[in-house]
């Protein structure tokens, strides 16, 4: 991972839209259900390319989820997406019963996830979606780190998954630092940077912030490895154990509540199989607020500087 170069900025939602549109040329079963904000969640590309496979259902998320179930029961592969706040809470019962209990393959896109969505404020900042979705049996939960990876996740999900899939992504352009050759395997972590003293396991936008944090930590002589945990469920147990065994200390970072998210998933593995000191960084049981994305990252202390500072304190405490 070359942190000295500049990467293209691209919103992860664009990766979702492009991934669906591309895989749809190969898989004729794919249909997309619109919930009014089609272009806003990246699905405008699909609608333009496959107007006969796009169905508008308006601002009615509960119905969208149930209709998706009905289509899947008939052998189609429905995809729908709206803001992650709505798609995981407004229609949660439909997702749970109509889709997951029926064990149906439906791709659910959680758009505008995290606090990075900024000025819209707390109602539109999904900070609980990972916790909610990973508690639902049969649900695969994926939180890719950049647009390229969202695209790959979508394609892999279509090719490999059997049941429901939740893919989380954001709106703001972020560095696209993975490349098309990089392998992507659902359920496997990716070691992006090697190090000796501590392992940072991050997900989504926080992977890039964590990589930047390691540059700051290096100045203090701390060697830090960074792992991208793009699949929260199923969690990569053997990967996480091997990282913990190597560095003995684990930090998790997520743009999500610390209650029930990536940190919880990692600690469920480590506390039962290899207890070790852990620091869980994320949003601490509070709603977000309006502000610019960078301001919010800083205020809620999940920007690279805050991550570096907290990791340093954590390591001193553990010495």
């Amino acid at each position, binding site marked *: 991972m070359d942190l000295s170069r500049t990467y293209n900025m691209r919103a992860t939602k664009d990766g979702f839209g492009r991934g669906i549109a591309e895989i749809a040329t190969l898989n004729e079963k794919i249909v997309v259900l619109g919930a009014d904000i089609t272009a806003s969640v990246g699905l405008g590309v699909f609608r333009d390319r496959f107007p006969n496979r796009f169905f508008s259902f308006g601002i009615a998320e*509960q119905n969208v989820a*149930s209709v998706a*179930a009905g289509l899947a*029961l008939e052998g189609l592969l429905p995809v729908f997406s709206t803001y992650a706040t709505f798609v995981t809470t407004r229609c949660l019962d439909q997702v749970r*019963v109509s889709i997951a209990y029926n064990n149906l393959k439906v791709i659910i896109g959680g758009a505008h996830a995290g606090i990075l969505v900024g000025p819209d404020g707390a109602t539109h900042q999904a900070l609980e979606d990972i916790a909610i979705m990973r508690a639902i049996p049969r649900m695969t939960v994926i939180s890719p780190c950049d647009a390229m990876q969202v695209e790959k996740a979508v394609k892999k999900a279509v090719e490999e998954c059997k049941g429901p899939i939740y893919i989380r992504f954001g709106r703001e352009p972020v560095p696209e630092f993975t490349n098309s050759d990089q392998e992507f395997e659902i359920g496997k972590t990716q070691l992006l940077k090697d190090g000796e003293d501590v392992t940072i396991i991050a997900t989504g936008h926080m992977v890039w912030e964590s990589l930047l944090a390691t540059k700051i930590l290096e100045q203090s002589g701390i060697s830090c490895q960074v792992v991208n945990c793009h699949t929260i469920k199923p969690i990569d147990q053997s990967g996480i154990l091997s990282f913990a065994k190597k560095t003995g200390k684990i930090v998790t970072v997520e743009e999500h509540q610390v209650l029930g998210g990536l940190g919880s998933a990692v600690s469920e593995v480590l506390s039962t199989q290899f207890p070790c000191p852990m620091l869980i960084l994320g949003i601490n049981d509070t709603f977000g607020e309006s502000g610019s994305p960078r301001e919010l990252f800083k205020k809620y202390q999940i920007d690279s500087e805050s991550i570096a500072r907290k990791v340093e304190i954590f390591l001193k405490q553990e010495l």
Partner: protein
Amino acid sequence: MTRDSNVSELINITFQVRLDILEMLTLAKSGHLGGSLGVTDIVVSLYFNLLRHSPENPRWELRDRVVLSAGHLAPALYATLARAGYFPIEELKTLRQLGTRLQGHPSLGVELPGIETSSGSLGQGLGIAVGMALAAKIKQQNHKVVSIHGDGELQEGAIWEAAMSASHYKLSNLVAIVDRNQLQIDGHTEDVLSLEPLAEKWKAFGWEVKQCNGNDIKDFIQVFNSVGFHGTKPTVILANTIMGYGVPSIENDNRWHGKVPTNDEYESFKEQLRKKYRDIFGRSSAQPK
């Protein structure tokens, strides 16, 4: 296949199904008796006369689909499916017991033949039926999709989201049947949260509306057969029923929504049911088997 049992044969089957329901719930010691008895004539008419389906080949591509949105009415569906030959009648006795395929509410995961979808959380079945009906249009198949709802269930907002989408997509292959017994757990629907004017509501949502006596097999079949299926609108049948139909001492009594008989009550209910059917057959000049 289409079963086209005549009315007196159908009445015989409903008698048997109602006996099954009484026995199943008495054995299970939990479940929903009133609604199951009330909806029996509708479910039996569908499977033994109106629908195209194949108990020997439950996943037959061209079958008509039934979504029991009011999943708590499962005993009526289970008993009817068993009587139609989908699975052994003996299995009805396992209702709600550990390891059973007859879950408290229908479950797709346990692979009970004839079950199209899991249900039990009210208000979701119409959306599922919309998805199935839309899939049929996409695949240019001409089977019917039938959903069955409780009237109290219509208080769920998701029903009206689905209703809007069904007329938007002109799903003429979809028929929603409302078991209009006017009762829900807390009391009379019009006291709990009024539904009327119900026919006008559905009309305003772009549906063809039909009404019938849902405990009168002849009337229900006639009304169902009058559905066009090829027009531009989905159809709703508001079927007026009596909760607990067949056992006079519990008819129209919402306390029997989710209650089951004691062993003594079971004997009394069976006796009441036999008497009721003697009266029904007396009126129709048909003979009980």
